[in-house]
């Protein structure tokens, strides 16, 4: 997984994300922000699921399906590459 583009994003603690290279901005919710920050620090998908279930009231199964969904959104937004 190529997260190069992700590294350039300016992420503020409220969930406002700004891409200074392209002038595009994004809004993420709390868990989206949580995952984005983990991805920026180079954590694997499996580890993120562990982090999510530790931090939040969620089963590993639901967290995994939601994470897949979220990664698909990031791909669609060209923020990560396969």
């Amino acid at each position, binding site marked *: 997984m190529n997260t190069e583009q992700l590294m350039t994003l300016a992420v503020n603690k409220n969930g406002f*994300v700004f891409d200074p290279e392209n002038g*595009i*901005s*994004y*809004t*993420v*919710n*709390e*868990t*989206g922000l*949580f*995952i*984005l920050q983990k991805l920026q620090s180079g954590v694997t998908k499996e580890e993120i699921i562990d982090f*999510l279930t*530790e*931090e*939040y*009231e*969620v089963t590993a199964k*639901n*967290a995994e*399906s*939601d*994470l897949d*969904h*979220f990664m*698909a*959104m*990031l791909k*669609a*937004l060209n923020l990560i590459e396969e």
Partner: protein
Amino acid sequence: MKKHYTAPYIERNSAGNLNKYAHTTVVRHQDNIDGVPIKNLVEKYGTPLFVFSEKHIRRSYRRLLETIRIHYPKVEVVWSYKTNYLAAICNIFHQEGAAAEVVSRMEYEKARSNGIPGNRIYFNGPSKRKQDLQLAIQEGAYIHIDHLEELYLIENIADELAIKPKVAIRVNMDTGISPMWTRFGFNYENGEAYRTVQRLVSGGKIHLAGLHTHIGTFILDPNAYYWAATKLLNFAQTIKDNFGIVLEYIDMGGGFASSNTLIDQYTPGELASPSLDQYAEAIGAAFNASIYVKEHNPRLILETGRVLIDESGYLIASVLGKKNLPTGERAVILDAGVNINITAWWYKQRVLPTKPFPGTYQNTVFYGPLCMNIDVIRSAMPFPDLYYGDTVIISPVGAYNVTQWMQFIEYRPNVCLINETGEVDVIRFREDLSDITSREFIPDHLRQI
């Protein structure tokens, strides 16, 4: 204590979508109907599940009657069978005193099997066959004539049976709204309606008891009823003056809007739909200004079905799956689709979660279970997280669904009624394979495969 979880979400900002509250229609959940927990209903009767509230139905009927009576006391509200002809539902209205309004042989037979005598049935519609008319005339029903062939047919039957049938003629007219429903009945403005009465009177075989109109459906302008009533009453006066006939009743048909919102309507139904009082005031104003009414005090009949039943009906559905659409929206597949909830095509129905949620949303579109692209229950709107097995409640769905639903690839589900004391009865049981096969015949040569 772990934090409350919501599914992760990211959205690209652009002018026009930068408002987190823009489309937030869902601000609460509904976990019961008339105090009966949805969880219990789902455990016992499965999903999808239609649920009707008897308390709400009776309250709606009484409220309509009382509201109209304030403006015009001599009023009769009849039950429009096509809106919902489950026997239990019809009988609630019949117990309240409603006669039956039917539009086909099937509905006529249904009303009779519910115990309604012929002389308390108003027979509308453009497709009454000779046998249907014979039966209805014999049993003393009121026939509302739609076209001239029907008039001739009724005259023949009158001769054959030596009965003077009681009829009304259906009149269409310009009431300032569009579209004008000119395909039913006889036109007022161009004199067609007058000529029909002339023809009817000259035959001398039929008793003209009333005038009928039905100006359209989901009428958002109460004034249209003022014009319709004014025109019918003027016509009644003309009939009195020229033919000496005093009519028993003026039937204003139906068409009152419920709180539902039409798909292409911007202002939501709860804000755009007139109140019952506004409709009643419009009709009352026309009646109370009429000299004909002062002299002859005709019965006002209303056949307005949707406004009496739509909001009393709910549909509970379960989540079968989720997927991500290329648009970034989340799609949820429900076990109830347009096969049983056909009014989802015309209205933006309310979809609510059945349990509390933290107030975060994702754009969600609701699909039904059919393998067809048209099976959309609700286009995208912000909705709380949903997972497999969660339930949602869809409303209002009480009008037209349990009559227009179709038998396509699925069995039609249980329909429940919560009575006034909170007990639940199934008033139509879930279908099984025998419902599908019992009418079929397999020729001998096709029995072996």
